[in-house]
């Protein structure tokens, strides 16, 4: 069902947790299956220095959350905004078709967090 990489990120998720004094926080809920993903950012000089997540969701939801934190860290805000759901799925070696909506969640959560950061720093 899931690739080895999905299972690895599911079992050993990277960057789980919260950042107390986060510069941006984004939460998205998947109305479809009721899952929730929250991402915390620490930004310095427009670069994502630290990123953490919490997710209520399936294996794919947790794995996509985990992998997007790896993909986003050390990227500039603009680079991070360019990350797509498709890239997230590809990074994991693919997701089962029925799970594609879970990967939507990860990129959306990151975007929401970045938008929150931008708003806070206007």
């Amino acid at each position: 069902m899931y690739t080895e990489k999905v299972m690895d990120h599911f079992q050993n998720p990277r960057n789980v947790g919260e950042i107390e004094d986060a510069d941006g926080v984004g939460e998205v809920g998947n109305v479809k299956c009721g899952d929730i993903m929250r991402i915390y950012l620490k930004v310095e000089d427009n670069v994502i220095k630290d990123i953490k997540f919490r997710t209520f969701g399936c294996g794919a939801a947790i794995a996509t959350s985990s992998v997007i934190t790896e993909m986003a860290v050390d990227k500039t805000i603009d680079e991070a905004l360019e990350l797509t759901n498709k890239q997230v799925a590809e990074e994991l070696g693919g997701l089962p078709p029925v799970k594609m909506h879970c990967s939507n969640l990860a990129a959306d959560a990151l975007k929401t967090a970045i938008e929150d950061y931008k708003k806070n720093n206007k």
Partner: protein
Amino acid sequence: MKRVYLDHAATTPLHPSILDVMLPFYKELFGNPSSVHSFGREVKKHVDKARKQVAESINADLDEEIIFTSGGTEADNLAILGVAAALKEKGNHIITSSVEHHASLDTCDALAKEGYRVTRLSVDEHGVIDLEELKSAISKDTILITLMHANNEVGTVQPIEKVSKIAKEHDIYLHTDAVQSFGQIPVDVNQLGVDLLTISGHKIYGPKGIGALYVRKGTKLKNLAHGGGQENKIRPGTENVAGIVGLGKAAEMASNSVDEMQEVEKKRDRLIEGLLKMDDVKLNGHPEKRLPTNVNVSIEYIEGEALILSLDMEGIAASSGSACTSGSLDPSHVLMHMGLSHQTAHGSLRLTLGKGTTDEDIDYVLDRVPKIVERLRNMSPLYGK
């Protein structure tokens, strides 16, 4: 790694003594039971014997009341579509419940699309239907009540005997899906008072791909498939002989295993007790009227599939009513109709015990589940706020 299989409601391991009775039919006894010659006639005898075994196991009056099918799903389809087609002159109303297995649920939906009127009885918080609601649903058009004996997700047992009394008063056929109950609690077609009853091989330590529909003599039922004269022309096709023989033996063993189930029930109770020690965990289904093998709990703040996968990595096979496990968008219709919130239904965990489940298995699960739950909760944005 230790492996603990606690998903017996999904399927059971084949009992070795059932495999033993099947093997000759994969070897020397390969004839087609419809053949006139001795290769066929020998095999026919064993098909007849299996029919008798199944009939006796559910206390049917006549062997010919047993129709072998390719499984529980086909038997449910045959019962519901077959009665609907046979009685379409009489009426077009069918009563079922909102917590049926998909084999019945979707079949009733298909009939609804064809213009039949389908009433789906609601259930209470424990998953039990309301007899008064049933009574008031009955109309002169009602031709069939189809109601599962025990639920596959939460193990809740429905009051079939009482439903039967009501059905008889109104001269309405009653079908029950006994796929989950058979072999766990008494299943006796006369005591239950049903006209049609479904069983499936692979839920009673028999083979997959074989099941049977009990059809009380005189019950009007139209065949769905056409072809040879097998199964009284109700269900044509060369018989799955090994499967049938396996089902015969499995049914015999199932009807003798109700005692054994008391032992399983003790382990189940210990498992439930242990799980309920965790915070924010509650039991789904009926506290007493439930199958002796069924544990179903909702664990707040976490999602079922993540839990199942984590358990799997510890060697524990379990199941969940989470939408994510099924690939559908909504969590279990059973849990939702019992009034659980979307989120609580998402966090459901079903552990179903079997005859081979040991006390060590229970200990192992009770050791691992809390650790996994803690890990997942720590990852959850819903927890600890």
